[in-house]
């Protein structure tokens, strides 16, 4: 008869961020163990709270599934003598398998006959195997683990009890001085210890002890509680799945409560209020139906609604202290001017070899200015961009940023507006930190985009010049993320600026390095960016060979390079493109044999030669123009016009002829054409995959 299995690990409060992942590991590993152990079962359920991880296996078989195994013995030649009697070898084999010669049967393997016996592997009783489950408990991985007392085991938090049942029997094992039992513990304050009769009682028994073991049920209780509160108060609580998940894993029995704060604090920047509530206290901010922050918050208590008003009062007091601190900082900060803070930047070191933040701001401003010129900005956009660059870091020495570090830039925007700066510059102060994560939101304004690119380029060029090149998982200055940010902005804004010219611009700003150091750093920076471009193109499913082809000459203008890569990824599978590709690649291969570039028309001997040259001249002119417009399709079509004349050229001319002048001239022609092709991409690097 099948029985249920329960394993529960009782812990001191797990970090909320570990709970779901640990539960998943527990159920996956349990499933794997039952399958590998050949123990049939009906289903597996898992549970988790901050104090427990549990798995319930329904209807586990009492025995392993038995197995028939075919065992190969010696070849028949050896197993039987001439008279057909079983030899010692055969007898020995059967004995060794616990069988007799009567069990022997014969089968051919690759044309040779062997003797076989079938061995029954009788399934062991499940109860004898179940103690192995203790290894699953100790094999759960956590991103941070610890030791306690005199134990050597490392675990997320100390293990304090373990319930382990097979039907009504305890599965015996011991981990870190704790023995398994049939006891579990209820809510820390509302429940008590209970003895479980059978595994199936688990969830209901805990619920009686004020523990909701199923995280989805807890989450639903929170959502329902917040909905009820919202409709009572006629406001709404914006969804926040991350916070909801965290709070679900901070409680065993949730009760939602609503607290309030003095409306006078609503004059603080909304992000300050939200950070104070959400990040510091795990409260959900509350908004009016038209989207304005209201002086309320929703919190979740780990317990029932007994004396809930005391809990509300306590939480309100804590928030009040935080907001009054923030209010104090806000008022103190307003007493000083932007210039006062800019002055202070001269005393904050950015990086030892790269000077202060004030030095960095000077460089950012110079880069932003040059970038604006390249983009031909004028009027207010230009002056707003320059102003944004000058003040982009001014909020760093303020009390508010000191207290709410994550709000750098956002505080800057608020303060800049208060100080009467124009809206666009203020917005750019906040936006220049974007994207915060590699795949995060990009700046929405051109001013923000320019300052963002300038700031990131300066950090990358500076750090690499100072020898701080990221290696492996070590990237303390976040250079990879910042390079990705630059490339994404260049792509989104479709600026006609090559990555190379940006790197030159950033490198030029560093007076403290010698020319040799700068040249060296410039090479490393380009290499660093090539890796980032490769990474980004791969993410859009472009393959390595195509990436190498388009990056052959330079990284170039990002959207154009990306377009080329996409187009060539298509053409490599397109049969119609084959004649073009063959012609062009043939030119690349032969041109590699020469350095000669000078063509003299008078040396041409054949019509096809002259024809190719004439076509080249017209293609080159058209290509250069199209190239400026960055139309990958048209540029490739233009190169394609060379295909027929190239084929004709090779059909009617011998390139490596004995006449040296003719040979050199023909090679020079090919070399000129090759340069044009390379400007587009190294087509010879691509593995062509046309199927016919």
């Amino acid at each position: 008869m099948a029985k249920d299995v329960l394993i529960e690990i009782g812990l001191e409060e797990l970090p909320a961020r570990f709970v779901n992942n640990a539960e998943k590991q527990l159920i996956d590993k349990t499933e794997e163990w039952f399958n590998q152990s050949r123990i049939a079962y009906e289903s597996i359920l898992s549970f988790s709270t901050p104090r427990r991880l549990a798995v319930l296996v329904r209807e586990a078989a009492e025995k392993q599934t038995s197995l028939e195994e075919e065992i190969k013995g010696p070849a028949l030649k050896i197993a039987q003598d001439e008279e057909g009697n079983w030899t010692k070898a055969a007898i020995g084999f059967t004995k060794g398998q616990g069988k007799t010669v009567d069990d022997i049967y014969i089968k051919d393997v690759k044309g040779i006959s062997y003797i076989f016996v079938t061995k029954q592997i009788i399934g062991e009783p499940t109860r004898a195997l179940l103690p192995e489950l203790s290894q699953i408990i100790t094999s759960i991985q956590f991103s941070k683990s610890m030791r306690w007392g005199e134990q050597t085991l490392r675990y997320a938090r100390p293990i304090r009890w373990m319930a382990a049942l097979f039907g009504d029997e305890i599965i015996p094992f011991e981990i870190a001085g704790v023995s398994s039992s049939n006891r579990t513990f209820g809510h820390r304050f509302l429940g008590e210890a209970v003895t479980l009769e059978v595994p199936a009682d688990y969830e209901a028994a805990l619920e009686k002890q004020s523990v909701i073991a199923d995280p989805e049920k807890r989450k639903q209780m929170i959502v329902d509680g917040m909905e009820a509160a919202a409709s009572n108060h006629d406001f709404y609580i914006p969804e926040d799945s991350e916070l909801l998940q965290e709070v679900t894993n901070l409680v065993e029995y949730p009760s939602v409560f609503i607290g309030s704060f003095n409306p006078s604090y609503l004059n603080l920047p909304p992000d300050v209020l939200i950070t104070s509530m959400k990040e510091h206290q795990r409260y959900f901010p509350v908004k009016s139906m038209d989207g304005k922050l209201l002086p309320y918050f929703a919190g979740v208590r780990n317990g029932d609604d007994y004396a809930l008003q005391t809990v509300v009062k306590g939480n309100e007091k804590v928030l009040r202290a935080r907001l009054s601190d923030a209010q104090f900082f806000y008022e103190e900060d307003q007493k000083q001017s932007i210039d006062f803070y800019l002055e202070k930047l001269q005393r904050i070191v950015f990086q030892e070899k790269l000077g202060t933040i004030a030095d960095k701001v000077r460089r950012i401003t110079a880069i932003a200015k040059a970038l604006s010129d390249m983009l031909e900005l004028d009027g207010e956009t230009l002056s707003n961009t320059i102003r944004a660059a000058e003040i982009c870091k001014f909020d760093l020495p303020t009390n508010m940023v000191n207290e709410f570090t994550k709000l750098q830039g956002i505080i800057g925007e608020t303060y800049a507006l208060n100080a009467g700066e124009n809206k666009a510059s203020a917005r750019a102060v906040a936006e220049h930190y974007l994207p915060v994560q590699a795949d995060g939101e990009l700046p929405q304004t051109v001013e923000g985009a320019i300052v963002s690119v300038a700031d990131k380029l300066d950090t990358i060029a500076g750090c690499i010049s100072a020898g701080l090149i990221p290696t492996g998982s070590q990237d303390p200055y976040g250079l990879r993320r910042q390079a990705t940010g630059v490339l994404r902005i260049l792509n989104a804004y479709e600026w006609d600026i090559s990555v190379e010219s940006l790197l030159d611009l950033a490198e030029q700003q560093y007076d403290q390095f010698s020319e040799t150091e700068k040249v060296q750093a410039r090479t490393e920076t380009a290499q660093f960016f090539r890796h980032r471009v490769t990474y980004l193109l791969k993410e859009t499913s472009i393959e390595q060979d195509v990436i190498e082809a388009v990056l052959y000459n330079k990284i170039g203008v990002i959207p154009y390079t990306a377009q080329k890569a996409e187009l060539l990824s298509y053409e490599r599978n397109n049969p119609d493109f084959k004649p073009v590709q063959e012609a062009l690649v043939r030119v690349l291969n032969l041109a590699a044999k020469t350095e000669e570039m000078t063509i003299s028309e008078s040396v041409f001997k054949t019509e096809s030669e002259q024809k190719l040259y004439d076509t080249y001249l017209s293609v080159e002119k058209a290509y250069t123009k199209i190239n400026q417009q960055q139309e990958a399709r048209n540029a490739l079509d233009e190169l394609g016009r060379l295909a027929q004349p190239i084929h004709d050229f090779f059909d009617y001319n011998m390139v490596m002829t004995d006449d040296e002048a003719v040979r050199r001239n023909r090679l020079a022609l090919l070399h000129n054409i090759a340069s044009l092709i390379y400007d587009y991409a190294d087509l010879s690097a691509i593995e062509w995959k046309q199927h016919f």
Partner: protein
Amino acid sequence: MTIQEMILALQKHWSDQNCILMQAYDVEKGAGTMSPMTLLRSLGPEPWNVAYVEPSRRPADGRYGQNPNRLYQHHQFQVIMKPSPDNIQDLYLDSLKVLGINPLEHDIRFVEDNWENPTLGAAGLGWEVWLDGMEITQFTYFQQIGGLEANPVSVELTYGIERLASYIQDKENVFDLEWTNGVTVNDIFFQPEYEHSKYTFEESDTDMLFQLFTMYENEARQTMEKGLVFPAYDYVLKCSHTFNLLDAKGVISVTERTGYISRIRNLARSISKTYVAERERLGFPMLKKEEAE
């Protein structure tokens, strides 16, 4: 409950758990952890259970007695138990009950907080304990001290006394807290708060402090080289406090800051090593005593 009654209740509670009741250590320090009764004694294999009140100086938090929540000097109630007992969370929660906090009427949570003090090469895992959303205790299992693996592991409980009192007495301003009947924090601490803030931010002699730092550092090193761990450690504490005074005045740049911190850390690390070596040379006396019992 007055602060004085709170301290008495906590002392009684932890004394009943066989903790040695110590008095505050007489050298300035930023946190109860820095007392040699915690930092050094939590090293090595010898059992150690102790509880004490520690006045903790944070010059940068000085606010001339004007801020309702921040103090130049606040008080911590510190408990160390080595090895950490299996029922330590229950012992802790019982200690809240003796302070009149009924868990059924409140929301008490253990929220992940991993503590690290790079200056002392110390790190641990544990929680902030929240009482109705307010952090009242830092609860830490030491994993590393002075750069050495903690083995066995000590548990450290640090109660913020003023914080807890502001809740228990329901006061918004720390200076309104009642220390004992009829005597407030304001009565005892307003003047020193004001004067220490004024001294730290305006009047302190920066050159002298820089000189003191170097002198204390040299003395710590020389003393340690003679195997005199406790006097050497006192000078490390003096270095640390002098650094905090300079840092609060804003005369140490970001880059220099890292340099000073690593100088203190190096001293703390070698003192930790020397301490364990000295205890070993003495045959870990407290270990033997425990076995004999």
